[in-house]
């Protein structure tokens, strides 16, 4: 019984209420970091960590937190975890920290984190909140990677550019789709990803949340 509920929470957060193609949240970071796979992966890991930890903390404190200041408390908690990610990257992965620059700090502005804290963690127990955070983060990550891979291949002709495992997929002589690494390319790919995912998931439009 407990297992099926966990599965339901996971599947709902991961796919049925996917933050990107259903709720259309976290779009700033989606547009900004998806021109390179490596940056996308680090942003995904950072977001999953902050999402899981903030969900767990908000859930732990849910019976103690006065309702009138709950959003201040959530912002405080999220900001603290984002600073932890920033410090850890600076100390242990300085190259990645330098490459991501301001984007790490911008995790705090990602509406998905605040959204899950407010909509789920503030009203549920710790374990379901952990699962919800993890699944939302994974749902965000999968969609971001689905956007990042074609953008990097078409824009740079590479996979994992900027890492020791970089592979040149398209010959250097190929004309690169420069627009793919620019902001308009991100909009095109995001729209395409949303269209495909909604079409695949079925019932396109039925579950629209109307959020921005």
């Amino acid at each position, binding site marked *: 019984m407990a297992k099926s509920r966990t599965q339901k929470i996971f599947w709902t957060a991961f796919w049925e209420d996917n933050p990107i193609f259903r709720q259309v949240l976290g779009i700033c970071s989606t547009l900004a970091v998806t*021109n390179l796979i490596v940056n996308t992966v680090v942003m995904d890991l950072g977001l999953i960590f902050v999402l899981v930890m903030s969900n767990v903390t908000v859930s732990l*404190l849910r019976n*103690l937190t*006065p309702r009138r200041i709950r959003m201040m408390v959530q912002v*405080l908690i999220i900001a603290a975890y984002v600073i932890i990610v920033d410090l850890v990257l600076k100390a242990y992965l*300085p190259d990645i920290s330098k490459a991501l*620059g301001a*984007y790490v700090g911008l995790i705090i502005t990602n509406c998905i984190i605040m959204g899950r804290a407010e909509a789920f963690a503030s009203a549920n127990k710790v374990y379901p909140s952990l699962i919800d955070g993890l699944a939302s983060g994974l749902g965000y990550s999968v969609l971001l990677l689905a956007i990042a891979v074609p953008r990097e291949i078409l824009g740079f002709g590479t996979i994992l550019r900027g890492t020791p495992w970089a592979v040149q997929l398209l010959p250097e002589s190929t004309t690169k789709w420069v627009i793919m*690494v620019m902001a308009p390319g991100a909009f095109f790919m995001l729209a395409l990803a949303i269209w495909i995912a909604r079409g695949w998931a079925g019932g396109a439009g039925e579950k629209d949340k109307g959020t921005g």
Partner: protein
Amino acid sequence: MSLVKSRFFSVLYMFLLGAFFAGVLSAIRVSTADRIEDNQKFAESANLVRVFELARITPETTGGDLARLIQARIGSFWIVQRQGRPVCTDKEPGGLETALYRAWAAYDESGAVIAYAFPIGGKGFWGPIAGLLSVEPDGETIRTVAWTRHTETPGLGARIEEDAYREKFRGRLASDPADHRLTVVPEGAMGDDPHKIDQITGATQTTVAGMGVFLNENFADWHRFLPMLRQCAQSAASAEK
């Protein structure tokens, strides 16, 4: 009214939670401070070695290796304001002295200057860009560039850091803009003209509006202090002998 619903509790709760997280963050900050400082020092030293092309930086390179190399082959120089006029020194300015400029010289084993480096930087698209640029002993012919700090868009403006783009600087001229300005031209159009450098398509704000402007300002400063720095670097080499 229950305690949890009282305003006093809200204030106290927020204060305690803030204090708790401030404590946690302080502890993490303290425990990572040395490592972050070491990383920053390593990055600064690596950039200096990289801009002079004295050694290849590999994952095995340690901070100690870089420090020894810098000690043996690189001299640091400052232009300071003393009694109302600029003076060149190889001593780091202290007390009330104001540093007007800083540059470096790399020497070969015989003590001859093989290159100079000076700071470059200015306004980028998202924030300040800073780096070092090395020139041949003639003071004009660019060897390479090493960017130390920027917040440009990964995959776009941040491509100024890629080796392929840095290589485009080689052989260009860091001339005094009063004589000849360096112009940023559309990607692929620079050809052999030593006064032109390619932009990065898609990063116009970083390369044309940013780099294209600040490099010429940096070159003007460099040429203003070059005669003093050249003399200073040569005297330091003679004193070393």
